[in-house]
């Protein structure tokens, strides 16, 4: 009995052949007909879409949330929030449009104890952890409260890293968008994997002959890796080009909940991300293909017609995994889109 893997492979091959035949009827040359059918089947193009979305989202994510602030030793810069008796003020507006910060020492000392509208940004002393600064400050303020009683309303203050204050609100949205774009990339991998499977199936007996002639597993492995690698890298190149435009558009639209957008671009880190993801995808795809090819017994492969043959259980698992991911993406992206739309209107 044919396994599900064999069935899907035969259906896909039939689908591809029908597309080639249609192209031929439309007057293409045999080579052109085949090439165009493979392109339509989705290889480079689909992967480019997947990786493009992933790189664009990664660039935004990295630029906004991961990259340190453009200050020396940014980890040490913190913002103090005064905590008063009664209702906590609804977030202090971060000083947008301020060109520079001046040290407090340059202004005359303030003796008033009720001016709670100041925003305090400080730098932690070298080697002082946030928790210690918080503890010291709390102790100090409590002491001031006992000394001055009703003349001051501040009872405590919170110390938070500046980066967190600036970008905290956009973090969940950006994380969600990044996850969604990675799911899109996985869906693109399903398409590429279908394409590779059809081609690998047609090449099974070629592999078997090479094995019989004494080709090592490594030699065969390199050959199996070559094709996904070419598809993925070509896809990555197109995808990066698309991502660069997408990021520029995103920055131009300037969604108001995301701070630091002006620092976002497709930079070296993003390129490295694209490269590693593409190579990883190529490796995974070639493993899925190879898992099937390796388990083929030579006699089977040489005597088989295109329809029979043995599919490896591992290969089926891997491919089912990809199909499951695609279904997961369908059910995930929709709520994700709704969520991010809701988040951006807040």
């Amino acid at each position: 009995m044919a396994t599900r893997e064999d069935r899907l492979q035969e259906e896909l091959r039939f689908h591809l052949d029908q597309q080639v035949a249609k192209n031929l009827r439309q007057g293409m040359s045999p080579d052109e007909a085949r090439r165009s059918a493979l392109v339509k089947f989705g290889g480079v193009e689909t992967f480019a879409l997947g990786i493009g979305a992933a790189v664009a989202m990664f660039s935004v994510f990295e630029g906004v949330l991961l990259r340190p602030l453009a200050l020396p030793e940014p980890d040490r810069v913190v913002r103090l929030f005064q905590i008063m008796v009664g209702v906590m003020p609804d977030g202090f507006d971060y000083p947008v449009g301020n060109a520079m910060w001046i040290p407090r020492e340059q202004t005359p000392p303030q003796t008033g104890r009720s001016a709670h509208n100041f925003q305090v940004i400080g730098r932690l002393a070298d080697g002082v952890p946030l928790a210690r600064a918080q503890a010291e400050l709390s102790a100090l303020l409590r002491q001031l409260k006992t000394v001055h009683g009703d003349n001051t309303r501040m009872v405590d203050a919170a110390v938070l890293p500046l980066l967190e204050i600036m970008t905290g609100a956009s973090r969940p949205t950006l994380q969600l968008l990044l996850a969604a774009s990675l799911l899109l990339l996985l869906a693109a991998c399903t398409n590429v994997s279908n394409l590779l499977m059809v081609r690998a199936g047609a090449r099974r007996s070629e592999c078997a002959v090479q094995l019989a002639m004494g080709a090592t597993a490594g030699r065969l492995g390199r050959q199996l890796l070559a094709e996904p690698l070419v598809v993925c890298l070509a896809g990555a190149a197109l995808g990066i080009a698309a991502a660069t435009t997408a990021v520029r558009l995103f920055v131009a639209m300037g969604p108001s909940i995301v701070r630091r957008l002006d620092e976002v671009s497709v930079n070296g880190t993003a390129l490295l991300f694209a490269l590693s993801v593409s190579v990883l995808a190529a490796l995974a795809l070639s493993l899925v293909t190879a898992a099937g090819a390796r388990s083929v017994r030579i006699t089977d492969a040489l005597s088989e017609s295109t329809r029979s043959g043995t599919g490896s259980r591992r290969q089926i698992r891997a491919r089912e995994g990809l199909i499951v991911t695609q279904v997961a993406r369908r059910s995930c992206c929709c709520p994700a889109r709704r969520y991010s739309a809701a988040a951006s209107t807040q």
Partner: protein
Amino acid sequence: MAERLDKEAASILQGTLDMLVLRSLQLEPMHGWGITERIEQWSEEVLCVGQGTLYPALYRLERQGLVTSAWRTTENNRRARYYTLTAAGRKHLTQEIKDWERMLRAINLVLQAAKG
């Protein structure tokens, strides 16, 4: 002929793929390629279903018992997997079309109200 929409817009509207696939099988059993071609023709080449979307959908519909499938020979003597609508599939399709028409009417009402 209707203008071909760009790639993004031509991807099947979320949730309508199953309905379109079932509808294309309403007249006669067909293989995967035939379904793609039929949807493309009937929609005057506006809608196109990629293989990466179609086959997972067909396998899902089969698991849900809405279609069955069997190997048959095409007129060109090739073996192909043909999909047939089951009774449950027909019932499901009728319901889906009803829901769709109700939704379409509702949306149109809103759009026309906005115009006037």
